[in-house]
């Protein structure tokens, strides 16, 4: 599949304070995003997510490393294929939502007729389009931010903490919009420190911690390969020496810590003339995987 974005071995140091002390924030970050993927850049605050995104967009220079967008280095033509929503976006106070989008569209040489109204409607800002941006709530600013990011119909959409500051309804609506973009075949890179958002939206995950990528891969595979225990439901028998998790009528649910234990439960149930109704593997949650990876990283540091 076509690689939309390739981030190779990024290193970045900031100079901070009066004495310009050097603080390294990215230590060889590498990952790639393929066409049509929704990739979650997951990490706690200060992990280097925003710096990585700013480096991709050429907003902040890196010490070393390479970034390829559609196989080429960042240029104006590559930028025209990207849409970007920063964290807690802020726009020109005295312009209206409509004027802002119209002004931004000029950076791309204009957009097709009716496109501005279309994106305003998509993000639910049609009614507020003639109001000045300074009167917008935080949630409305976030929606306007998304509208300007998708205005020029970009191939790659980069969203930096798009859910922060949104109420539960706003979050759900945002997820619906992202799902729509997924259906349109857009490629999305999405940073967040909220695991639930990543779990609900993304199909790929890049975990970043202290400026390093600590784990990356397909979310579903990641969750499936990390089985914590099994739940075995049997019917018509009770197994001696095993503590039941739950009983309901003649059904009993046992917890098995390993595949061997599952086999043992099945064998004993069959021997006693009972039936095995279900064996459900219970995987680690994304949160548990993330915390374990962080622990590993700290252990090796």
């Amino acid at each position, binding site marked *: 599949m076509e690689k939309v974005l390739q981030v190779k071995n990024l290193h970045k140091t900031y100079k901070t304070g009066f004495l310009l002390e050097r603080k390294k924030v990215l230590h060889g970050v590498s990952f790639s995003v393929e066409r049509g993927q929704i990739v979650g850049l997951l990490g706690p605050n200060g992990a280097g997510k925003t710096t990585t995104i700013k480096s991709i*967009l050429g*907003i902040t220079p890196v010490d070393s490393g390479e970034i390829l967008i559609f196989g080429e280095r960042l240029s104006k033509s590559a930028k025209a294929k990207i849409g970007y929503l920063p964290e807690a976006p*802020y726009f020109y106070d005295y312009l209206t939502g409509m004027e802002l989008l119209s*002004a931004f569209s*000029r*950076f791309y040489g204009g957009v097709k007729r009716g496109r501005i109204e279309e994106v305003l409607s998509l993000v639910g800002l049609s009614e507020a389009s003639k109001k000045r941006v300074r009167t917008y709530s935080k949630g409305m600013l976030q929606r306007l931010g998304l509208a*300007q990011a998708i205005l020029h119909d970009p191939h790659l959409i980069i969203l930096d903490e798009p859910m922060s500051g949104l109420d539960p309804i706003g979050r759900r609506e945002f997820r619906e919009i992202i799902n729509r973009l997924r259906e349109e075949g857009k490629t999305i890179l999405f940073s967040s420190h909220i695991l639930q958002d990543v779990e609900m939206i993304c199909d790929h995950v890049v975990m970043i911690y202290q400026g390093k990528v600590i784990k990356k891969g397909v979310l579903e595979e990641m969750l499936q390969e990390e089985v914590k225990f099994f739940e075995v439901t049997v019917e018509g028998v009770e197994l001696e020496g095993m503590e039941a998790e739950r009983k309901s009528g003649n059904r009993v649910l046992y917890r098995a810590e390993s595949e061997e234990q599952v086999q043992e439960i099945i064998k004993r149930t069959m021997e006693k003339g009972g039936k095995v109704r279900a064996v459900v593997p219970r995987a680690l949650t994304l949160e548990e995987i993330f915390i374990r990876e962080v622990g590993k990283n700290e252990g090796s540091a």
Partner: protein
Amino acid sequence: MRAVLNVARITIKEGFRDKVYLSFLFFAVLLLIFSIFLGMLVVGDPTKVIADFGLAVISIFALLMVIFVGGGSLMKEIQKKTVLVVLSKPINRGEFIMGKILGIWLEVVVNIFLMSLFLFLLILARGQALWGIFVQAGLLSLEMGVLTSIAILFYTFPTYFLSMLFTLSFYLVGHLAPTIEKASRTINNPFLRNLTRWVSYLIPNLEYFNLKNQVIYGLKVPASFYLKSFLYFLLLVFVFTALSILSFEKREV
């Protein structure tokens, strides 16, 4: 070029609606009206007093606009991170800075001509058409172009107060440049004399854009002066815009 003009257009639109801009314009007009009363109180030709005071008011308010409306708009964009969104578009940092300078300058030029028109009408009401006011407005516009590029250079630094102070200092020292050069001739120590002279050459000489006295007293000015002023304006704007771009390239936003 499209990106530069677009940034300028956004800056102008935003600026004209900014309450600070409108407040400055309002207070400038109030002070210009006050000049009528000043003309009555002060000994001398009232028209000349009004013109003198009025031109000074226009000059000071144009400077305040460069500092507060112009520099403030760049600072706000950096602090509130609007600049991140703009820089993610097909535009580079140099084009962004050029667009800001152009937009702020045009905003201030409109203001200068509005204030000048008001002053012209005040004096016209007294029976004198002082067309020279518009000549001075043109020169002041060039001066404010230079000061805008200087202000933007300083506003690419992270300290707001220092940026403001440096811009103001350049305005004051810029008008003293010829005086410093003259004073250097009276220094006996050759090293200090040369040093002072060279320092005076390095300071942007803003007196190239000042014809207030000639306007008020109706003195003739050779055409070569305007040409020199314009070329000097181009040189200074080029130098300070280039420095602003270099400084902004290094700034983390």
